[in-house]
């Protein structure tokens, strides 16, 4: 509707069209402009590829690190699930008493399983794998104690609750020494936490850089089309109308940059996976570097499209307003 001339109809309202058609027109309009903006990128491929490359690589670094940290965490949690508490029993506890203890402990909520290894079995095994062989038979008596291997349930396998369980087990009178080697795990966890913080920090810094780069690219685009914008303003284009193609350009930068980052990360992880395989075999750990599925793709695209849009929004808000016909 015209402001100056009552009754003079403007634009889409000048013809009677249904709401459905209006919605359809809205979408076809936007689709057309989106495709146009993509066409602009295609017509200047070199500049576009450079911008997309900056965006893609900037996302690649934090994504790769994040996924590596995440996987390390997963591996270490595998180790922790397998973590056992070793209880060395008093020498004077008879085997029958030890069996009673096994029965008593196995009903505890925190405990998944209890295995009894008698002193004799332990000595046999030690003889077999230590290579000392007959030398051990010169011992007067078996120096090894009976041992209980206690595996906590997964709920109680974290360093803290496993520690609590250990304290509780130590109070059993048959137990002489209880051992849970979790200190190295705690250290690993602390290191992983630091690594996570660093990855986050790095990501934030790189995201800022991406926003600035996109903003600057869009600014140059706007200045390049200064004459066109002037003419459009002269014939009555609103700022919003002029801004739209630039916002779509930002969107495409984001989308393509995100796809590129996803591909790069996938390749890097595959590469790392190859060299890690032999290393992991040595440690007898199953390692599948995971996390590059559909979900990761969605997150990365979401982040990169947001960054593209934020960058172009900042630029467009500043610079389209500045261009006014004089």
């Amino acid at each position: 509707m015209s402001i100056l001339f009552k009754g003079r109809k403007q634009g889409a309202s000048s013809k009677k069209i249904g709401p459905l058609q209006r919605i359809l027109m809205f979408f076809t309009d936007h689709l057309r402009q989106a495709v146009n903006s993509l066409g602009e990128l295609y017509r200047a491929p070199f500049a576009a590829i450079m911008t997309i490359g900056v965006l893609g690589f900037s996302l690649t670094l934090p994504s790769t690190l994040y996924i590596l940290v995440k996987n390390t965490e997963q591996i270490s949690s595998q180790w922790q699930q397998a973590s056992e508490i070793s209880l060395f029993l008093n020498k004077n506890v008879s085997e029958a008493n030890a069996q009673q203890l096994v029965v008593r402990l196995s009903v505890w909520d925190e405990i998944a399983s209890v295995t009894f290894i008698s002193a004799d079995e332990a000595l046999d095994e030690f003889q077999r794998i230590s290579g000392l062989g007959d030398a051990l038979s010169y011992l007067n008596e078996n120096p090894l104690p009976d041992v209980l291997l206690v595996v906590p349930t997964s709920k109680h396998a974290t360093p803290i609750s496993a520690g609590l369980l250990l304290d509780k087990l130590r109070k059993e009178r048959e137990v002489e020494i209880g051992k849970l080697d979790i200190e190295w795990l705690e250290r690993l966890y602390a290191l992983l936490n630091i690594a996570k913080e660093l990855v986050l920090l790095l990501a934030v810094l790189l995201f800022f850089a991406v926003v600035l780069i996109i903003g600057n690219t869009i600014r140059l685009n706007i200045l390049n089309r200064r004459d066109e914008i002037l003419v459009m303003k002269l014939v009555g284009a609103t700022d919003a109308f002029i801004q739209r193609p630039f916002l779509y350009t930002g969107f495409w930068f984001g989308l393509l940059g995100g796809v590129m980052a996803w591909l790069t990360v996938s390749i890097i992880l595959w590469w790392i996976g190859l060299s890690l395989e032999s290393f992991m075999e040595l440690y007898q750990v199953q390692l599948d570097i995971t996390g590059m599925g559909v979900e990761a793709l969605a997150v990365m695209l979401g982040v990169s499209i947001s960054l593209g849009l934020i960058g172009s929004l900042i630029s467009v808000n500043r610079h389209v307003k500045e261009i006014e016909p004089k």
Partner: protein
Amino acid sequence: MIKFEQVSKTYPGGHNALSKVSFHLEPGEMAFLTGHSGAGKSTLLKLISLMERPTVGNVLINGHNLNHISRKQIAYIRRDIGMIFQSHQLLMGKSVFDNVSLPMVIEGHTRKTIAKRVDAALEMVGLKEKARDLPITLSGGEQQRVGIARAVVNRPPLLLADEPTGNLDPKLSMEIIRLFEDFNQAGVSVFIATHDLGLIARMKYRTLTLKQGRMITDGLSQAEEDMY
């Protein structure tokens, strides 16, 4: 249609472009605005098209005071005013059709309507065959007519022209003025700024003359000729 009430415009730095200008252009009227360069013609047109704001006084279009129009509304005001420029202001990289259709695209018309109206506008200015050409391949007179087609494509009630015949020979100038007369006969108010006195002299239209920012005559072009 256009009403100036004691309008003055002082640019930063103290240059008085317009001083206490008052006049009233009736709806459906066609008038010329003349004066030497620097007399304030362009400033006056810019006040109407909201490229500038008056320092003092009111500019009214159809009874609406432009001082009350916010920055965001300016775009919508310009859709009601067909503007024609001496420098054409065409997009040289886009076809004639795309240039003329720009105001319609901005208003969000359907493709069908746009094609129909652009065809009609190009027909009126006699450039229907050149719709696919680039403006850069056209002559000066043809480029000006593309500008006119763009100005009238969304059928504005008011046409403003700033030196529309500036670079054209007398015969082409007359053709352009005849085009404006056609639109005027269709009920459009037309306001043309020009320093081409010979052109005005041949017609009997109201002529407003500016001299150093003041309105010195307001009357028929015949009286205008006696002044010089």
